[in-house]
């Protein structure tokens, strides 16, 4: 069997920063060689470093130990040197420069193994940071894939031509066939159909569209063919607006690493400056010679190595890695350890409703008879054969209700689908063929008397306020209104209760009607429901809650992506969520396991405590080992032992995070 060749996607190649993994010049099979190359090099260098330590124990194997160390310097030292030289050429002093300087200086005082260890630790933490930032980049790239890059334009003479969306002007007519995604915002000028917006807004019910209706880019055309007139250029389309919101939300997001960057620059400058100062000052004030093992150069280089934040660098990544690994085992995927820190600082949790607190699957609620009356079972039996081939969520709800009630569908003939409106056929009941129609309000309204139309309007509004979806059905002379509801997740109530027990403020953000929002909030015990929100309103509330209390936002749709990014921490439901939402989020609940949220808060507290202990220990080591060594109060070997001992201690302390939190 021949496997279809994967097409080259240049966009991905450019989004990945011209990475080998997506190189258009490499054969598809050989691109795999470029995956996680830096991480692989870091791990290989770690292996070489450990081998070097072991080989050095036996004097005759010393040359092999030296060879292994050269391997470390080659694999991770050369890349570090390249980065540092670039930084220095840009007149920038940072932790990279400090580490590289310390590592390579260590060769001068005969401690290359120390330098190699610095390089390995630094490379591993760098590889982890790269993995996190790559995930952030992919959030934007997935957004670009929502809308197609080309479309069929209807020219003035009526002929059709493919065009890149970049070449489509406002006012151009675009043909959207069934199953295609709308490339640009526009207004329908011909045709009737339904649009699927579930991946854009989380709304599971297809929206009927006809001439005069506006359609957003990114929506999927489900049934008929539509012709739209483009109303906005690509840069102003719905998808571009979402991209702008996500980008600005990412930029606005407060990040602990900014603080780290500032701190590391100052720290690096101070240590490098102090080392330089000691080289000159020690001979001047203490009469110490410049050269030799007791000389100022030797001591200053020793100070530089000992002051390298080895324990600091290892302390946080191991702690985060342990916590991330434990979380992953619980079905909670975190895109970086720093997220634990952000969760720790949050005082509020906000949930999106549809698809997050609810499953997004409809279930039968009740039926109102507008004309005549018969048993619900009879109506369901008549509806079942029409809905069997339909993809509409209401069709699924009809069929699952029939299954639950163990009802067999009636025989059917003359089936017809009316795009964007409904279905019609005849079903056989008691030897007679009876006409059946199921659809939206507009589909059956014209067959109703004015009184029935008024009653239908009232009932529809009532259902809308209750957050219910409706289907109107006519079987013979009987006219009925079916109501369907979204299903609440069974674990949602317990999760909300546990979060509140931890003293967290729980809110819900939904575009639904106020009446329905309040009903769901009451049922789950949510403190503050915000209803009838547009995407912009949602983002405003998220911004306010983020700055007031610190917010963990939980959502699932593409429309949640800006909110997930803007919140201090974004949590996406893993299964069934839009790719963009999972990529914009910091945390993914792999099995939609909401009950893990309270656990995650506890884990973040535990992580924070252990990291605080590690940082104190690491800082103490630097303070109590380096300065005395510089002044000759303790010998250099003891300073090195303390330095390494501190590193090992913080590493072991961090491993405690592999256990569950006990408070």
């Amino acid at each position, binding site marked *: 069997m021949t496997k279809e060749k994967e097409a080259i996607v240049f966009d991905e190649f450019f989004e990945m920063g011209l990475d080998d993994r997506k190189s258009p010049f490499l054969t598809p099979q*050989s691109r795999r060689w470029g995956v996680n190359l830096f991480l692989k090099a870091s791990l290989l260098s770690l292996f070489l470093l450990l081998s070097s330590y072991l080989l050095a124990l036996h004097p005759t194997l010393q040359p092999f130990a030296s060879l292994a160390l050269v391997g470390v310097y080659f694999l991770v030292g050369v890349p570090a040197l390249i980065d540092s030289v670039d930084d220095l050429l840009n007149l920038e002093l940072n932790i990279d420069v400090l580490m590289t300087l310390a590592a390579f200086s260590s060769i001068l005082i005969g401690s290359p193994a120390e330098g190699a260890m610095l390089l390995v630790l630094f490379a591993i933490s760098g590889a982890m940071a790269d993995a996190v930032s790559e995930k952030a980049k992919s959030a934007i790239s997935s957004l670009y894939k929502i809308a197609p890059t080309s479309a069929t334009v209807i020219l003035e003479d009526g002929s059709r031509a493919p*065009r890149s969306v970049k070449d489509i002007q406002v006012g151009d007519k675009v043909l959207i066939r069934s199953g295609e995604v709308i490339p640009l915002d526009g207004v329908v000028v011909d045709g009737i159909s339904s649009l699927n917006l579930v991946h854009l807004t989380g709304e599971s019910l297809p929206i009927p569209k006809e001439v005069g209706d506006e359609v957003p880019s990114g929506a999927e055309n489900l049934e008929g063919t539509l012709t739209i007139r483009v109303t906005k250029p690509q840069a102003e389309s719905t998808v571009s607006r979402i991209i702008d919101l996500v980008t600005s939300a990412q930029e606005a997001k407060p990040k602990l690493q900014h603080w780290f960057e500032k701190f590391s620059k100052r720290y690096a400058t101070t240590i490098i400056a102090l080392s330089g100062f000691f080289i000159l000052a020690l001979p001047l004030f203490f009469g110490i010679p410049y050269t030799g093992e007791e000389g100022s150069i030797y001591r200053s280089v020793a100070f530089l190595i000992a002051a390298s934040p080895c324990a600091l660098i290892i302390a946080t990544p191991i702690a985060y890695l342990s916590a991330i690994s434990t979380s992953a085992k619980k079905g909670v995927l975190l895109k970086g350890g720093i997220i634990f820190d952000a969760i720790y600082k949050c005082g509020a949790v906000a949930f999106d409703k549809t698809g997050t607190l609810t499953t997004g699957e409809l279930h039968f609620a009740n039926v109102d008879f507008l004309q005549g009356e018969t048993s619900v079972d009879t109506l369901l039996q008549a509806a079942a054969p029409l809905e069997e081939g339909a993809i509409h969520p209401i069709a699924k709800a009809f069929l699952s209700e029939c299954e639950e009630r163990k009802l067999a569908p009636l025989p059917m003939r003359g089936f017809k689908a009316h795009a964007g409106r409904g279905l019609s056929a005849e079903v056989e009941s008691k030897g007679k063929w009876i006409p059946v129609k199921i659809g939206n309000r507009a589909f059956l309204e014209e067959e109703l008397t004015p009184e029935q139309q008024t009653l239908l309007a009232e009932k529809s509004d009532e259902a809308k306020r209750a957050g219910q979806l409706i289907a109107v059905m006519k079987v013979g002379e009987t006219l009925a209104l079916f109501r369907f509801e979204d299903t609440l997740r069974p674990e949602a109530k317990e999760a909300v209760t546990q979060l509140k027990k931890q003293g967290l403020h729980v809110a819900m953000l939904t575009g639904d009607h106020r009446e329905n929002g309040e009903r769901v909030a009451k049922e789950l015990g949510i403190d503050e429901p915000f209803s009838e929100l547009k995407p912009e309103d949602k983002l405003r509330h998220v911004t306010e809650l983020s700055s007031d209390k610190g917010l963990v936002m939980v959502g699932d749709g593409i429309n949640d992506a800006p909110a997930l990014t803007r919140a201090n921490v974004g949590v996406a439901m893993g299964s069934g969520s839009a790719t963009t939402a999972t990529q914009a989020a910091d945390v993914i609940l792999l099995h939609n396991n909401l009950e893990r949220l309270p656990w995650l808060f506890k884990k973040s507290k535990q992580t924070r405590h252990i990291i605080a202990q590690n940082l104190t220990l690491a800082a103490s080591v630097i303070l109590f080992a380096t300065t005395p060594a510089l002044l000759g109060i303790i010998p250099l070997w003891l300073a090195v032992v303390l330095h390494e001992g501190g590193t090992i201690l913080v590493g072991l302390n961090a491993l405690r995070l592999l256990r569950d939190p006990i408070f």
Partner: protein
Amino acid sequence: MCGNDPVHFKGKDAVGHVVEAQVGGILSKAEIHGEEAPDHIAAGADTARELGLFALLFWTLFYGVDSLYTLFAFFILGWTVWRTGRSAWLSWARLERLHRIVAEEKWEIDHHRDQEREELKALYEAKGFTGKLLDEVIDVLMSDGDRLLRVMLEEELGLTLENQQHPLQIAIGSLAGALISFALTTVGYFTLGFYGVLFAGLFSIGVASGLLAHYNKNRITPAVLWNLGLAVLAWSFAVFLLQAFENL
């Protein structure tokens, strides 16, 4: 694309077929440096050939020196690391250069669409497309960013996509070539001594040249004999000029 002959077009549309054919033509015109063999085979064969020549020169020039095999082995070890790393580095450098060219072409497409359209039109006019058919072909090509970039890279710049191997694969090919050739010289040394090394060196050169000729669909016999001749010529220069120098 109704009416396409699937056998003739090899599962591609007409435009895709034309592109492939033209690229094939451009490559055929180019001077061959072993590009048609998979990169790792080419690198391995080239390394084996070089090591074969080293064996000839080293053993002849240093003949009579103590522990010559040990010296040779460590010299080859160091050289192999260099040659392996260099193979990777060279192919990374080539990739970097090609990536820069793609980025430049994409910038052109994004910022000078009208100009790119004209270039494309000229390319396809030269192929014989005219009138409405030409406009249709250009419309199709311009509508898809990925396809347009691919066509411009292949047609305008004559680059071939998806035919190179990862630098690490090439490096491993090079390493394998060195190890095989070294193993042959070792077997030669321990079986026939000095002459065994010379024979193994020539054998490495011959087999590597034959292998490359086979992949490049060149005639094998001339390739093997020309390369062996070249090796003997190089060896003779070193040996006889040294002899002449010593006689002075």
